[in-house]
């Protein structure tokens, strides 16, 4: 194409690929950016059918240019991809319009396309950084876990996940399974704390017909049905001493004996255990077998409570809103800054599960706009006043509010050890107690003297 006029100069200088076709879909012009994006020289593209050059996933069934020519209407920014000669999928956005001559007669079509590779890479980088499996997090503590997870998953070793209730232990276990070589095989979770020994044994190992009354036929247990897959033994700290011995045998010998069977069966499963308790402490107290502890604790992952990763509250709230909107066919737009600020001040003893319940509660009261502080559960309305715009405007109320926050922050920092918090605040311990009482601050039962802070 020789550069002849202003239009040609503009077409050659822009960063969007542009080509035009005649009524037989033959390419009649192909600009510089189109050459660069497709990797096809202009001389090779000219005269060819557009689908041979700009081969997108839409050509065959949903061609934008064909629709434009049929309906005589432009189509703007349709996302698609084309496959280049290196077998790479190149994401692009495409716009199409009809091409008319001086008399207004349609003589063909024009297609412009923008290379989206950079945007796509950025989006993936962001997405990947904050998300793993069904877990989302921007917290540095969680990022460390996310970074470790691919190696942990590939190792096939036993994993112990510790964390308070509602921190997402099962989601983490699922993510490990999803990244492992066993991902095509079953993932089965069982709550060991919810079942008595006999039931747990029949659930895990199965039973043979006649093993007990009403055992009419063989029933395979989880170890058999999850063969080559992954089993999550949730709340493993709650199993009895007797069952710990049985479990140890399975982990050591990789065989198990179904109830009523006379022969051991082989087991090939990856064991992930989880607990809200401190197994190390239980071992020291003699409540958990040391040999079993070492068997299940090849790799230990500690999930932080939500109060230690509050930066995740906004993205978790967004995710819950999106999910509940989808499930209940609602159109709640989001959460107001005020309501989010209230949520940020709370400590969530029930962790992420509690936050999810709070958003579900808000959905009931919220018309389809934004979640406001009034839509939150009652206990949020009786919180100590917040600093900033939600505090009362008087100087006294503001002072009270700031004192409350300062005391709470110092207590949290020192794991609720009152003496250490008072030292941080530069006041005497008895002054701290007096202020806690006067400000009506409700503290958790732990006092921080015996507790250990985990990293």
């Amino acid at each position, binding site marked *: 194409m020789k550069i002849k006029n202003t239009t040609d100069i503009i077409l050659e200088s822009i960063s969007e690929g542009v080509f035009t076709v005649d009524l037989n879909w033959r390419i009649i012009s192909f600009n510089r950016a189109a050459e660069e994006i497709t990797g*096809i020289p202009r001389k090779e593209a000219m005269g060819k059918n557009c689908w041979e050059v700009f*081969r997108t996933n839409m050509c065959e*069934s949903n061609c934008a240019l064909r629709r434009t020519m049929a309906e005589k209407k432009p189509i703007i920014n349709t996302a698609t991809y084309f*496959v*280049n000669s290196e077998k*790479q999928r190149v994401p692009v956005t495409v716009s199409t319009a009809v091409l008319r001559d001086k008399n207004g007669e349609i003589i063909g079509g024009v297609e412009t396309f923008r290379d989206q590779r950079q945007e796509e890479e950025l989006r993936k980088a962001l997405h990947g950084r904050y998300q793993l499996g069904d877990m989302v997090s921007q917290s540095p503590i969680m990022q460390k876990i996310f970074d470790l997870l691919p190696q942990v998953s590939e190792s096939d070793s036993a994993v112990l996940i510790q964390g308070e209730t509602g921190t997402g232990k099962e989601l983490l276990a699922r993510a490990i399974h999803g990244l492992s070589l066993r991902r095509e095989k079953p993932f089965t979770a069982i709550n060991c704390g919810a079942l008595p020994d006999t039931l747990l044994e029949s659930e895990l190992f199965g039973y043979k017909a006649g093993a007990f009354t009403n055992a009419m036929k063989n029933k395979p247990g989880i170890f058999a049905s999850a063969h080559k897959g992954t089993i999550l033994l949730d709340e493993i700290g709650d199993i009895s001493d007797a069952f710990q011995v049985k479990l140890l045998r399975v982990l050591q010998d990789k065989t198990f004996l179904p109830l009523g069977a006379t022969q051991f069966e082989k087991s090939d499963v990856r064991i992930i255990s989880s607990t809200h308790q401190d197994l190390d402490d239980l071992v020291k107290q003699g409540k958990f077998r040391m040999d079993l502890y070492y068997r299940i604790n090849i790799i230990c992952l500690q999930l932080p409570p939500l109060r230690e990763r509050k930066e995740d509250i906004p993205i978790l709230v967004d995710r819950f809103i999106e999910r509940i909107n989808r499930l209940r066919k609602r159109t709640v737009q989001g959460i107001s800054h005020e309501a989010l600020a209230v949520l940020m001040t709370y400590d969530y003893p029930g962790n992420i599960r509690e936050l999810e319940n709070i958003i579900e509660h808000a959905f009931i009261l919220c018309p389809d706009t934004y979640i406001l502080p009034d839509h939150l559960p009652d206990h949020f309305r009786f919180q100590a006043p917040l600093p900033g715009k939600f505090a009362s405007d008087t100087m006294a109320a503001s002072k009270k509010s700031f004192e409350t926050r300062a005391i709470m922050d110092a207590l949290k920092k020192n794991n609720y050890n009152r003496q250490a918090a008072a030292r941080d605040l530069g006041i005497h311990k008895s002054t701290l107690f007096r202020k806690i009482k006067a400000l009506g601050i409700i503290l958790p039962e732990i006092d921080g003297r015996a507790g250990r802070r985990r990293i």
Partner: protein
Amino acid sequence: MKIGLTVWNNHISPVFDAAQTLLVVDFEHSEIVDKKYVPLQPGIPHHQAGSVMAQNIQVLICGAISEVFARMVTASGIQLIPFITGGADDVLNAYIKGKLQTRAFWMPGYGSQRRRRFRGNFKQ
């Protein structure tokens, strides 16, 4: 010998990943014995590749194909002849006569890769 061509409007389909129809041709000594059209399941690599594999073809002739799909096809032992364009009958006849490796059947921009790939004739 059994070969497959992804086709659309009697042409080779522009993109294998999104192709909806496979033309399966059985021929012996350059004579076509059987010819049938099989619907594909575009979109998901293992579905699309699985539909092709299920036809027990030895060779697949297609248009542009992305890396993931290409690997799945070749991993199943099928010889892949990608980035081919033209009328389905022309391409089929050219293949049977061993003349598919001419520039007329290559998609634009694929010349250099094709030259590297086809130094010899196809084995049939």
